[in-house]
């Protein structure tokens, strides 16, 4: 079959559904594949059923899907990321189970195992880490800089729509056809049409292209937001550390997403139009792909981890009741990492034929990144030093990170040496290294952020006990799963292998599966924590909005914040503005006058583009050309029609702002301020008695 000779439904037919495989050939492999497909379908049915039963479709559409409020978009990003995280973790467990079943072929077929590590990587990077990072950024950044929304609220909704529709393609690939077997990096020529004529790589390509566009738009949005919408008086050196990391992350996106888009589109041209960018014949050159991909891929690692550094900076300062130590050096270190991240991409393929000199240059550049990272670690430790430390959940995640990330970073320095890399590349040592960087680095940071800012978003604190359980499960599970992989990696066990014959690997694999189970417990304790917290929310409400004696502007407003965030835009005089206000006694001011506030009006454009782009991707994957053409035209039309809409703003009258704000001020003045000793007790209603001696 060729792309030009296909039927009405392209190459889509009965055999594309996993149930067909089960009927023809019932075995464990097919049962696992069908269970996964069934879970997706079951999940959709349950969600649709619940929404219909509780008559939630209208509120869902009115309050969420059409909302352009950065806070709601942030929450939707995070919900999406957690759903995808659940799938990613379970895939990891299945892979560990396959290898723990001992030498031999296990219970999965090689193709299926390859699909698992491809979707696991693709999901965890593009559909867990990225949306989680930018979900948190969406919620927090405008609040931290004293803005009423992001620079481009409607564009923000479109970004979300594109990210979600691309993520849905990965879910669809479980039910219709199969996903790529080429890993998250999808190297050609293996993923080219000659070796892989099926739909798998096409699912990968379009999911990456569409989510990449969404992420690029997000990056532009946040760069502009922080450059242009800071409150009066907030100079760059008064910007909270977290916002600095988001600005660096946004710059990385603006420069690093294009290489990924170019690489994926050129791969698409090879596969669909018979071009020769990366083929083996007629002048194609796959090294161009490797260079393009990692020109994106390495900055990508830092655009994920820098925001986590920012989160830890806020958490360490708040829960040590101290000013962040070495702010200037942290800013310089963050910027240095952002710049250096573009100079090291070649270390991902030391063994692919460059000269020793080039390898040495990139190896040294890679080791240089350890310097600013080391500066950060020392700054955080100095922030903790002689602070009045509270071991709250975000802090525990932070401390776990400090220790584990040092190990992960040092194993990175080992790998940066090309001579060592020749020995351990493509082994589980590498897998252990990057999980060691990404779990404690990115995921723990995001979970810390989730625990830290949850009360801001929903007005009540998360359950401490289950939070601690999740910290211990994630930390312990991480150690049990990935420390053994360092050892088997050094023993020479290749990564991505569905079978092995050396029995000495087996005990390590047993430990790793136990760890994977503990990690699953960590995931479930996060969900239980949410459930318990919602159930007991009457005891943990913090309507005043400052449960942790916070230091930055987001804590100076009610929890949850009103749609317009700030009734009066603050005038910033200090880096830790809210702490400074509390010290001077100027927190919770009564303004002389209130103003009308203009907010962007709801729009459905993001949702429309989400649906249309989803169908467009599906049509392209399955060569249903007429449908793809219709969707292309519809997407262009939707955007053009949308630009004719003039009533984009909504005005909230000053009177309403005054009423809400004064009601909240009355609440502030009626509550008793609590000491840090009672931080986790029901007395903590969000009004902090600041610990000023150390705090300023």
């Amino acid at each position, binding site marked *: 079959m060729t792309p030009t000779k296909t039927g009405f439904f392209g190459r889509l037919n009965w055999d594309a559904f996993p149930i067909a495989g089960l009927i023809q050939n019932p075995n464990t492999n097919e049962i696992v594949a069908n269970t996964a497909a069934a879970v997706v379908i079951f999940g959709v049915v349950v969600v649709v059923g619940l929404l219909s039963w509780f008559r939630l479709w209208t509120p869902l559409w009115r309050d969420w899907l059409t909302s352009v409020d950065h806070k709601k978009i942030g929450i939707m990003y995070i919900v999406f990321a957690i759903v995808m995280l659940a799938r990613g973790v379970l895939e990891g467990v299945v892979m560990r189970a396959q290898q723990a079943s001992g030498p031999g072929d296990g219970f999965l077929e090689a193709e299926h195992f390859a699909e698992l590590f491809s979707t696991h990587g693709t999901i965890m990077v593009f559909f867990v880490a990225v949306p989680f990072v930018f979900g948190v950024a969406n919620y927090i950044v405008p609040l931290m800089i004293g803005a009423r929304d992001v*620079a*481009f609220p409607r564009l923000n909704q479109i970004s979300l729509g594109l990210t979600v529709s691309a993520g849905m393609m990965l879910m669809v690939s479980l039910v219709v056809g199969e996903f790529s077997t080429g890993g998250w990096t999808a190297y050609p020529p293996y993923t080219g049409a000659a070796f892989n004529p099926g739909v798998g790589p096409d699912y990968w390509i379009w999911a990456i292209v569409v989510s990449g566009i969404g992420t*690029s738009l997000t*990056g*532009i*949005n946040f*760069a*502009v937001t922080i*450059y*242009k*919408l800071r409150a009066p008086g907030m100079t760059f050196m008064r910007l909270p550390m977290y916002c600095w990391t988001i600005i660096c992350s946004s710059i990385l996106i*603006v*420069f690093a*997403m*294009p*290489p990924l*888009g*170019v690489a994926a589109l*050129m791969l698409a*041209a*090879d596969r669909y*139009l*018979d*071009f*020769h*960018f990366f*083929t083996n*014949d*007629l*002048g*194609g*050159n796959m090294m*161009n792909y490797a260079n*393009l991909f990692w*020109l994106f891929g390495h900055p990508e690692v830092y655009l994920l981890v820098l925001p986590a550094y920012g989160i830890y900076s806020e958490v360490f300062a708040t829960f040590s009741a101290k000013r962040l130590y070495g702010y200037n050096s942290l800013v310089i270190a963050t910027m240095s990492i952002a710049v250096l991240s573009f100079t090291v991409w070649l270390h991902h393929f030391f063994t692919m034929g460059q000269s020793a000199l080039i390898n040495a240059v990139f190896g040294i550049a890679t080791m240089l990144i350890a310097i600013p990272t080391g500066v950060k670690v020392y700054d955080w430790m100095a922030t903790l030093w002689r602070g009045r430390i509270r071991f709250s959940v975000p802090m525990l995640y932070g401390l776990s990170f400090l220790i584990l990330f040092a190990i992960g970073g040092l194993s990175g320095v080992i790998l940066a040496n090309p001579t060592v890399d020749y020995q351990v590349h493509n082994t589980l040592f590498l897998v252990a290294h990057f999980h060691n960087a990404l779990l404690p680095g990115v995921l723990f940071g995001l979970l810390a952020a989730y625990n830290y800012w949850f009360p801001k978003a929903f007005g009540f604190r998360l359950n401490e006990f289950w939070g601690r359980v999740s910290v211990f499960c994630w930390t312990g599970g991480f150690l049990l799963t990935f420390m053994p992989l360092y050892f088997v990696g050094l023993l020479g066990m290749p990564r991505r292998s569905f079978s092995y014959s050396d029995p000495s690997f087996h005990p390590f694999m047993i430990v790793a599966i136990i760890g994977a189970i503990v990690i699953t417990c960590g995931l479930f304790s996060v969900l239980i924590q949410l459930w318990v917290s919602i159930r007991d929310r009457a005891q943990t409400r913090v309507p005043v909005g400052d449960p942790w004696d916070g230091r930055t502007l987001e804590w100076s407003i009610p929890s949850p914040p009103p749609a317009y965030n700030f009734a009066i835009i603050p005038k910033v005089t200090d880096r830790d503005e809210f702490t400074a206000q509390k010290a001077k006694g100027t927190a919770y001011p009564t303004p002389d006058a209130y103003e009308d506030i203009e907010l962007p009006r709801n729009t459905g454009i993001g949702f429309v583009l989400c649906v249309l782009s989803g169908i467009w991707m599906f049509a392209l994957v399955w060569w249903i050309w007429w449908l793809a053409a219709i969707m292309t035209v519809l997407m*262009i039309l939707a955007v*053009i029609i949308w*630009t*004719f809409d*003039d009533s984009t703003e909504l005005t909230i009258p000053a009177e309403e702002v005054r009423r809400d704000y004064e009601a909240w001020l009355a609440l502030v003045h009626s509550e008793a301020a609590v000491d840090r000793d009672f931080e986790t007790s029901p007395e903590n209603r969000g009004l902090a008695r600041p610990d000023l001696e150390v705090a300023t």
Partner: protein
Amino acid sequence: MKRAPTHSYPGINLGEHHASAHKATEVVTFGFWVFLMSDLVYFGLMFAIYITMIDAQAGGPGPHELFDLKSVFAQTLILLTSSLTVGLAMLALKYNLPRGRIVLWFGVTLVLGLSFLVLEVRDFMAMAEKGGIPQRSGFLSAFFGLVPMHGLHVATGCLWLIVLGIQLRVKGMTDVVISRVVRLALFWHFLDLIWIGIITIVYFGGLTYG
């Protein structure tokens, strides 16, 4: 609202005492610059790919057989002139000339943009007749990955000109429409910039080194 000739942002005429509109336009224009920077990275990478693949002709036709510099010269003149006409539309905006003047220059720009596209497509067809199709070699893939991508940008610009022309007629000179005119002008100059890169690197570079 009075429209005065001098303003904080070059080329924008939003009136003297209109701080919020100025602020909004500044934010959007800055955002568009950032977008263009990202787009520039796309083209930069495509140029890099082209340079690495100049020799990957795999026995197929190369630059000397395929490139028609006369046509490229004509396209260059057309596109550079269209940049001038967009500039004249911006001046009409800045000096508060009647709305019709902006629409007129937009119309001229559109005609020039479309003529450029016609010439470009004729070039591609002539190349295909000589066997210069993207399926033939890595070199040709790189050429057809880059030059039509620029053409697609020009086509997008043409569509934008049409839509914005309609909006100028229907909505009049609102702040939002003016800010879009500014961004379209930026985009159009950006297309010219890329084209300068294309004649230098793709055509001259190809003929020199290919």
